[in-house]
């Protein structure tokens, strides 16, 4: 991240697909021109050696052909190039080139031509050494304090330092504890070699010590380089820096003070001669190369550090002085002096971008990509805005989404329930103890008129019923194709279902031109299941606790015609009583009056009446419809069995209370468990373990309690589920009886169902009781209200579990009373009396306090929350 970028003075790209690394760049006046003008020497892993003399006509120019003084291909990869006084007898600079198994020293010379492009340069091999070991890197310097010449030290990949006194090999020494080579540097002040070992330590070895550790191998001089370590090498000093290093530089700009700079992978160190840290800096990026280049201010040293985010940072000791962007990741950076420009930064990237640049306030202005900014036509936009707002208003007015008309359906799903039960039951894992649990086959067919992607079918029946398989997914459908699946439905849970219906749903995607992934669509259908699935014919019984009588306006029909699947044909027409045995064990009897037009359903359990009553009315209606008898109607005259119904509600509510108690107990025990855990943790963490004092027993005990409570809660849950199923059956029955009793229209029945059977699941937080109570009291307050006073009653704002069911019972009783007295169920907003309920203020319900005047809102009091999450930067990666 920087404001500025490095100003390009001269740059070029070397070769094609060549590789370069740290040692491949060197800057020096290699041809001894004496002008003080540095040349840039670059070697590559492909074996090319190039020497440049950049002198652009104006900054930023492309490299000219005559800038390249020399290009030769050597036979082997070039690992490192260095320039020093490597040839005996002369103080002139020579070029040392390190190959994998060879060290060559060349003299570079130029002959001047008449014009500039007539200049000729060539290299001459002065001497070479073949190496026995694979080289890695090298350093040079006046080892041992020799004057006027440089010796070379090569580090091999397996950890041997090989020293060459110019044309001759001096000795080789293995570094102790070596694993992988680190950077190598020579400090002339202390006459020692400094490296970073695989133990993550900076180690310094005196040249003297290296030289004298030879005793044992004196006689093997013939095998020059095969010398191995003799006397144990003693390290001069060691500094543990705790990381691997990329490079080491030894510099002394101010006389008398020399510093060892180490560039680690995560930190940057400056060490004193004796290996103590002078300063260090934690880097928040991955560095790639560095060079300490000068001391601008007394006592400080400036360093250039390049990193892998293409930045070059200039530090004065630890203070960032400048940051600049480079066009590439530098693997090596040098500072060079050219004829007309001093202190040029030379960088090399690993794919061969060589650049000479200087710092400057050339802003690297970040150009944000353009967002498609279109010419704004205010009139059009206003019109569009108005249009959109109209749509929004429409959408908020009409609730729900309009169903698509049936003929537009691209995909239809149909379910067909087979008329007979399966010969071989498909039921699995049923909880019912009966010997055979019958099952019935349902065939679901999907027909598609267009191409459909990813259709998937879900079949669901309400528990306690279950299906053998409820999820199907298909391959993409072609136009006019169909898929069929077969599954079986059976009774799984140990209670009677409240509905004998199932639902199939297909979700699919239809691809369009704009949206190739497809627009999601849904198609669904319902199917109803036969009564035989949950009950069997049985002997009718005379006596029962609960009886319901349904009147009709037509002469009675024999059971043989209405219930052919339950009546044995041999018994003939006489049978006026029919018994039903539910799989769960209870029994229901259906009686037909011979004289009057009545049917009586009786059972010991209220909820068991529902399925039979429903089946009866349904089948009677079917029967008369077939006979084209349109005015058939069932009625109910007797009182609604509310008392029995309330018992079921109480039972359900009691279980809910139990569940709540279990929850409280569980959380109590869990708190206790954690408290013991915490104490145990402290005990175990102690260095001197204290006795546990039976804490472990306590923990175990609490754990068992928690588990036992959880088991009990689960059992309660199962009971609750059964109780709710019963409650639902009974509710259905009550709804049916009310509607038969008051001869309600279908719309009104729908309202009734919505009131008593909320779609929400019955959960601990939001249960059936409070939902129904809210719905019933809403109806009482609006369409069934007697006076405007009642309408003003505000609803409790939050639904929460009531303390007992008395209020609910009272409301339901009241509800039935009002219906009996001629109340009409409707949800329309046309009734003028309802308006008052919405707008408060006018008639405040608290009569003691006259606050009506205070309708004015103090303007500033409504506090807007301030910008919540405004200021955020992504954290550093």
């Amino acid at each position, binding site marked *: *991240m920087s404001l500025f970028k490095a100003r390009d003075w001269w740059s070029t790209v070397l070769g094609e697909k060549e590789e370069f690394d740290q040692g491949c760049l060197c800057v020096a006046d290699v041809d001894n021109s004496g002008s003080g003008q540095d040349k840039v020497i670059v070697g590559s892993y492909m074996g090319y050696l190039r020497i440049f003399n950049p002198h652009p006509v104006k900054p930023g120019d492309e490299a000219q052909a005559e800038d390249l003084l020399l290009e030769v291909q050597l036979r082997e990869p070039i690992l490192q190039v260095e320039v020093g006084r490597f040839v005996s007898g002369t103080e002139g600079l020579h070029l040392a080139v390190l190959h994998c198994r060879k060290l060559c020293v060349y003299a570079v010379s130029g002959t001047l031509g008449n014009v500039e492009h007539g200049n000729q340069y060539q290299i001459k091999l002065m001497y070479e050494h073949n190496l026995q070991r694979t080289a890695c890197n090298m350093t040079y310097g006046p080892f041992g304090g020799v004057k006027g010449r440089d010796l070379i030290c090569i580090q091999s*990949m*397996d950890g041997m330092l090989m020293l060459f006194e110019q044309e001759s090999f001096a000795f080789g020494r293995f570094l102790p504890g070596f694993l992988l080579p680190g950077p190598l540097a020579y400090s002339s002040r202390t006459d020692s070699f400094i490296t970073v070992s695989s133990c*993550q330590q900076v180690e310094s070895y005196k040249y003297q010590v290296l030289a004298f550790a030879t005793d044992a191998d004196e006689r093997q001089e013939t095998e020059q380089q095969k010398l191995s370590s003799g006397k144990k090498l003693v390290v001069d000093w060691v500094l543990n820096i705790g990381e691997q290093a990329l490079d080491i530089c030894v510099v002394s700009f101010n006389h008398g003070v020399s510093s060892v700079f180490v560039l680690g992978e995560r930190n940057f160190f400056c060490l004193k001669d004796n290996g103590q840290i002078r300063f260090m800096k934690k880097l928040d990026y991955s560095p790639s190369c560095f060079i300490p280049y000068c001391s601008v201010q007394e006592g400080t040293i400036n360093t250039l550090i390049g990193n892998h985010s293409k930045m070059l940072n200039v530090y004065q000791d630890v203070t960032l002085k400048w940051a600049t962007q480079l066009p590439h990741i530098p693997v090596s950076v040098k500072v060079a002096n050219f004829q007309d420009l001093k202190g040029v930064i030379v960088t090399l990237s690993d794919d061969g971008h060589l650049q000479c640049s200087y710092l400057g306030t050339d802003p690297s202005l970040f150009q944000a990509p353009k967002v498609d*900014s279109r010419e704004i036509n205010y009139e059009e936009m206003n019109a569009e805005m108005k249009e959109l707002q109209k749509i929004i208003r429409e959408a908020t007015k009409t609730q729900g989404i309009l169903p698509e008309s049936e003929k537009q359906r691209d995909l239809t799903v149909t379910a067909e329930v087979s008329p007979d039960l399966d010969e071989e039951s498909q039921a699995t894992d049923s909880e019912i103890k009966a010997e055979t649990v019958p099952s019935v086959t349902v065939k679901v067919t999907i027909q598609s008129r267009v191409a459909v992607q990813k259709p998937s079918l879900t079949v669901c029946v309400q528990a306690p019923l279950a299906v053998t398989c409820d999820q199907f997914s298909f391959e993409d459908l072609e136009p006019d194709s169909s898929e069929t699946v077969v599954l079986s439905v059976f009774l799984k849970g140990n209670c009677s279902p409240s509905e004998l219906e199932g639902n199939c749903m297909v979700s699919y995607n239809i691809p369009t031109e704009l949206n190739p992934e497809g627009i999601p669509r849904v198609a669904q259908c319902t199917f109803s299941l036969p009564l035989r699935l949950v009950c069997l014919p049985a002997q009718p019984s005379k006596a029962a606790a609960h009886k319901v009588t349904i009147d009709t306006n037509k002469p009675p029909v024999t059971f043989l015609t209405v219930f052919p699947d339950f009546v044995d044909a041999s018994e003939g027409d006489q049978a006026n009583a029919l018994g039903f045995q539910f799989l769960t064990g209870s029994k229901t009897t259906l009686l037909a009056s011979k004289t009057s037009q009545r049917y009586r359903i009786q059972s010991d359990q209220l909820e068991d009446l529902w399925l039979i009553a429903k089946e009866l009315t349904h089948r009677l209606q079917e029967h008369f419809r077939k006979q084209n008898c349109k005015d058939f109607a069932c009625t109910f005259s007797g009182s609604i069995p509310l008392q029995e119904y309330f018992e079921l509600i109480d039972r359900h509510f009691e279980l809910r209370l139990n569940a709540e108690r279990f929850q409280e107990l569980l959380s109590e025990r869990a708190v206790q468990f954690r408290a013991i855990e915490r104490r145990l943790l402290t005990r175990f963490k102690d260095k001197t373990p204290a006795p546990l004092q039976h804490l472990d027993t306590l923990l175990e005990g609490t754990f068992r309690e928690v588990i036992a409570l959880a088991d009990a809660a689960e059992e309660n849950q199962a009971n609750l589920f059964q109780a709710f199923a019963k409650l639902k059956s009974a509710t259905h029955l009550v709804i049916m009886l009310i509607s038969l009793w008051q001869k309600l229209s279908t719309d009104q029945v729908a309202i009734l169902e919505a009131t008593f059977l909320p779609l929400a699941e019955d959960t601990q937080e939001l249960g059936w009781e409070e939902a129904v109570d809210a719905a019933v009291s809403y109806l009482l307050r609006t369409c069934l209200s007697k006076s405007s006073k009642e309408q003003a009653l505000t609803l409790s704002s939050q639904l929460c579990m009531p303390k007992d069911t008395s209020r609910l019972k009272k409301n339901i009783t009241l509800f039935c009373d009002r219906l009996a007295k001629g109340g009409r169920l409707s949800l329309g907003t046309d009734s003028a009396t309802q308006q008052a309920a919405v*707008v408060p203020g006018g008639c405040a319900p608290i009569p003691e306090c006259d606050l009506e005047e205070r309708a004015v809102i103090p303007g500033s009091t409504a*506090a807007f929350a*301030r910008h919540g999450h*405004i200021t955020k930067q992504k954290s550093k990666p």
Partner: protein
Amino acid sequence: ASGMGLEPLFQAWSYFRRRKFRECADLCSQLLERPHGEQELDSEYTVFQAAWSLKTRALTEMVYVDEIDMDQEGIAEIILDENAIAQVARPGTSLKLPGTSQGGGPSPAVRPVTQSGRPITGFVRPSTQSGRPSTMEQAIRTPRTALTARPITSASGGYVRLGTASMLTNPDGPFINLSRLNLAKYAQKPKLAKALFEYIFHHENDVKNALDLAALATEHAQFKDWWWKVQIGKCYYRLGLYREAEKQFKSALKQQDMVDTFLYLAKVYLRLDQPVTALNLFKQGLDRFPGEVTLICGIARIYEEMNNISSAAEYYKDVLKQDNTHVEAIACIGSNHFYSDQPEIALRFYRRLLQMGVYNCQLFNNLGLCCFYAQQYDMTLSSFERALFLAENEEETADVWYNLGHVAVGIGDLNLAYQCFKLTLVNNNDYAEAYNNLAVLEMRKGHVEQARALLQTASSLAPHMYEPHFNFAILSEKIGDLQRSYTAAQKSEAAFPGHVDTQQLIKQLKEHFSML
């Protein structure tokens, strides 16, 4: 490309130096596949050993994350924290108590707060989302949006993501089978042990084995290697043994002053909720390493979390003196200026970030808000436009829409504001502030029931905000429900004790009650 007969090990070594870890690891794998027995690791130097170590390092570097930046406090750690020094800490000595500001931090009316009651910072770091719920139940029930998600334990959080690296990179099983490793043998080879430790710790994320290795190695080094002590400390920290970690770090510091060790030790103190000790430690570290940015930044962060905004700003400025490209410092100073009613100055800081190449939704979001408050309306909408364009997820989009809604309220276009807040909720259904503001708009329209429902949603989503409570109190008072008004006002006062309007309302209500 390098067909010229470079030694493979040298090539791998060079790849490693250039951070081409994938290539390096592949090359090392080839070297390791050459017929060599397991026993070769026992012998002295071999190419095999070197390649093994290099591959270990390369695999580690691929997934390396600085341990100092890793901070994740899981629910279990908070609940089973037995390191708490004082249940009721004195003001200014703890990070747990919100609102114990000494340096005159801004009030929540000016600067929004996080769930734990600390001011919102200008820079998201792992620890800025921390807050300490008082019970397990509360911790679990706290609304878990994408912004505040907290793992059950830290062992199941981000660490797991890092630890699965081995499964991804090597389809035929992990490179090193830890269960078959004889740690004692490796502990005696310092050159292999350090790389191996980092591999186990960072790549495999197996803290227990790493700790075993480190314990053996430090013993082998006769407790003279500070590096091993720091590593043991890191392991202890991960295991939640903070006191033990502290001991190791202190012992390491005695041997060798290192910036990292200071940072680790300070992190331990912060986890132990001793910000003052951590501050002193940072200052001690600064004596040894003057001008170290990470240390100054650490101080600034602590001051910020302690709600001492002015000191924090001072230290952030010090950071910029040392490193003027420090994004975190620029962003934090910018947000400080913004919240102290100097949007023009904040704008300059954010513009600086933009020039430096930060290019994301949040920045444009901030730029847009600054422009709006600095009355540079021409730039406001285009900034938000860009922010929307750059938003990476729905949470960010929601933030932008929310702020747009805010701007719309500011210019009085209530219709637009209404739609903006609706869009906020479409993008992020848990946006409590948007619910609150929508409620205020509904209130103005006279839709009391809707407003009340929205306010209730807002206050259940963000119990730490005082606005929904206060608005609810106002609303209830207006329709004459004094009892509810009073309860809500009390909640509002608990969330923001210094709010004058709330206090007035409570006073008024009390007068009413006494009259009855």
